[in-house]
């Protein structure tokens, strides 16, 4: 442990010294902290004067926390410069090879550079916030609470880790600063959106909501650090071929994995699909358990908590049952309003959205969407219980017939998506990040085309023609 920390510090220390000898980093940082807090303070003063004249309490109450967030973010934009310099800059100047030829381990190099990438901009960021807070304390405005300040400091820290870990992933995968800068826009744009989202939380939510932002950003940062560590390899830092888009090789890798050893579609279904399902055993178990838990938790939450919000009187129950009855009458024409192919398209699109969300969040957002869907089922059953329908009957006729196919398809698609995310952050000694991504996408497409699509197609037909008939049979009195 001590040896590892010493090695990480050795890498970091040199970088710190080098940075503070580089005027291109020091001067803009100093300018940023010596000028921007004063500009921000003056702007705050003018905004407060304006709002005191014309109203706008909501903005007035949260203006200073918002400005703190922005002031903290500006020096953080330098994290990209520092992080990109640390790997691709060294690669371009040829200074990385002597370091890579040394006995330092990959994790020492990675963590040392990550530490520097986070610390320098963060110190300037906190200094900037500190100066601004001193200026604010001299004005007759409400000073943010210690709790709010702690939240903003944590959020700023999480931003720094997120940006640096993303930039290092990019830096390792590029051979020139130019290429890395091009790719860095993939970090700046989402983080800018994230900041806007957090601004919305500050103005319209309460302080506690910021915890969700902190948790989300920290989780994503942690996964990015893991991704960086998993795919940090000396071989790729020295490789020249990683900037080259080799479609032929990409197609070959993808096709070989997708087709496997099968010589016909039947063989593919007989050998390859069961093989992929066996490989998905663990994520399938996780997703299935999570799905079941979500249904039950949501069901119990609704049955326990909703009556505390809404007074469920017999009149209300009758109204609700009448509304359900009206809807059941229209089920006869459901195939006109929502034809089976269109329903299939919606469901297939949803599972693709799970994948896309999973790809940008290493599985977490895709899994969240999946859990939300299953929680919705539990919630509906809970609501049915509250208004006097049997939840078991509702589930048996309203969900189970098509759910047998649809829920199975969604579980399989989510498990495959989860595996894509997990593979990205798993160490792989003989495959590049691109190759790992291609292989896991081929696995995903295998189960998507082989199982999910046919199951969703059957589910759509069953839902439109059989589920509706069963509902009418089960609830004839409505």
């Amino acid at each position, binding site marked *: 442990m001590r040896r590892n920390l010493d090695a990480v510090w050795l890498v970091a220390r040199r970088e710190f010294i080098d940075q503070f000898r580089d005027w291109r980093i020091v001067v803009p940082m100093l300018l940023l902290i010596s000028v921007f807090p004063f500009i921000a303070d003056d702007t705050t003063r003018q905004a407060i004067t304006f709002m005191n004249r014309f109203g706008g309490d909501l903005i007035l109450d949260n203006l200073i926390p918002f400005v703190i967030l922005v002031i903290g973010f500006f020096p953080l934009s330098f994290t990209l410069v520092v992080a990109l310099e640390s790997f691709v800059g060294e690669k371009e*100047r040829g200074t990385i090879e002597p*370091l890579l030829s*040394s*006995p330092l*381990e990959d994790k020492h190099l990675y963590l040392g550079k990550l530490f520097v990438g986070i610390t320098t901009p963060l110190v300037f960021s906190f200094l900037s916030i500190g100066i601004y807070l001193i200026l604010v304390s001299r004005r007759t405005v409400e000073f943010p609470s210690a709790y709010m300040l702690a939240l903003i400091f944590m959020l700023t820290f999480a931003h720094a880790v997120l940006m640096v870990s993303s930039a290092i992933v990019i830096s390792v995968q590029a051979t020139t600063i130019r290429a890395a800068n091009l790719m860095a826009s993939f970090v700046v744009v989402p983080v800018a959106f994230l900041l806007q989202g957090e601004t919305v939380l500050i103005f319209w939510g309460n302080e506690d909501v910021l915890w969700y932002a902190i948790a989300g950003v920290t989780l994503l940062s942690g996964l990015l650090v893991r991704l960086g560590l998993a795919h940090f390899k000396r071989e790729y830092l020295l490789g020249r071929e990683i900037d080259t888009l080799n479609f032929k*090789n990409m197609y070959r890798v993808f096709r070989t994995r997708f087709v496997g050893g099968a010589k016909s579609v039947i063989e593919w279904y007989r050998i390859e699909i069961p093989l992929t399902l066996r490989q998905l055993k663990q994520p399938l178990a996780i997703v299935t358990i999570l799905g079941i838990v979500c249904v039950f938790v949501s069901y119990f939450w609704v049955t326990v908590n909703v009556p505390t919000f809404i007074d469920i009187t017999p009149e209300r129950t009758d109204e609700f049952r009448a509304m359900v009855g009206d809807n059941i009458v229209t089920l006869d024409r459901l195939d006109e309003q929502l034809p089976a192919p269109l329903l299939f398209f919606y469901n297939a699109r949803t599972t693709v959205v799970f994948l896309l969300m999973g790809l940008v969040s290493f599985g977490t957002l895709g899994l969240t969407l999946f859990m939300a869907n299953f929680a919705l089922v539990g919630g509906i059953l809970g609501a049915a219980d509250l208004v006097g329908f049997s939840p078991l009957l509702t589930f048996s006729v309203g969900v189970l017939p098509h759910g047998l196919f649809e829920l199975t398809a969604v579980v399989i698609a989510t498990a495959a998506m989860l595996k894509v995310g997990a593979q990205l952050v798993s160490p792989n000694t003989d495959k590049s990040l691109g190759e790992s991504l291609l292989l896991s996408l081929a696995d995903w497409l295998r189960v998507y085309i082989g199982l999910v699509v046919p199951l969703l197609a059957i589910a759509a037909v069953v839902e439109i023609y059989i589920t509706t008939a069963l509902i009418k049979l089960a609830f004839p009195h409505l």
Partner: protein
Amino acid sequence: MIECNDLSKQFNNEFWAVDGVTLNIKPGQILALLGQNGAGKTTTVRMLTALLNPTRGWARVAGYDVTKKPDTVRANVGVLTEQHGLYMRMTGQEYMDYFGKVYGLNAEFRKQRSQYLLEYFGLAEAARRRSGEYSKGMKQKLALARALIHDPSVLLLDEPTSAMDPESAQLVRNEIARLRSSKRTIIICTHNLAEAEALADSIAIIYRGKILLNGTLDELKRDVLGPVEYEAVFAEPFDAGELNLPEGVELAFRDATSLRFRVDAPLVVNPKIVNTLTARNAPLVSFQEVSRKLEQVYLKTMADAQGVTYAA
């Protein structure tokens, strides 16, 4: 020592940068690895430094397997990369101290070793200056000193004098020659054939990832250019007429003032040739071996590999 067998590296699942390289370099030997740009020299060195994993084959460097003990291999190898790789904002002293720490040397030994190497390479006076201010030769010498900070038993030098002016290149070459010792194994990758000829005990020529030739300079000359040639030069035009040459001698070339012989066993037949010529009252000025350079060996080997005719 360095041993490798069938060492191969494939990139992108299609291009073999190194294909079946087998080498055995003993302690105290210097091997020059020659080849065109992109022939596979740097990739070979990077595999021997455990920077790249071989796709096929194995290598043992300083007694350790490069795939099983990469960190130990790197700890025992000194590498001079094609680009010197200096941190320009560090002084020479700081740079040496930093790499001393990287190689886990204790403070006292690190200080002694840095001072010794900086003095050895004539950099002691410039040690407190930032390396960005150094001349090209000084930078390369500092990089060489860095490669030696942990006194490695194996030294891998990739293009040690590339893009250097002749004086600086000569300085670095002299330093490499001084590094030869009974316990150290050295590989030099170079385009500079004179450098290879001057420094190396054995020479390997690599072409498209494959070793075409490997041996001592004399072995390579004999294998590629054939038996040694000797030339007799006359003071004035001399008509040798029909020469009764001893067995094992072949007349390779003649004109009015010189004769050239291809000889298998010079110790035995050269005195006989001289006797034959003097018996014919030839105005002999000199009789000496025709100088054959590594360049001829290299160019002929490359021409053969590419299927073109070698114009001597």
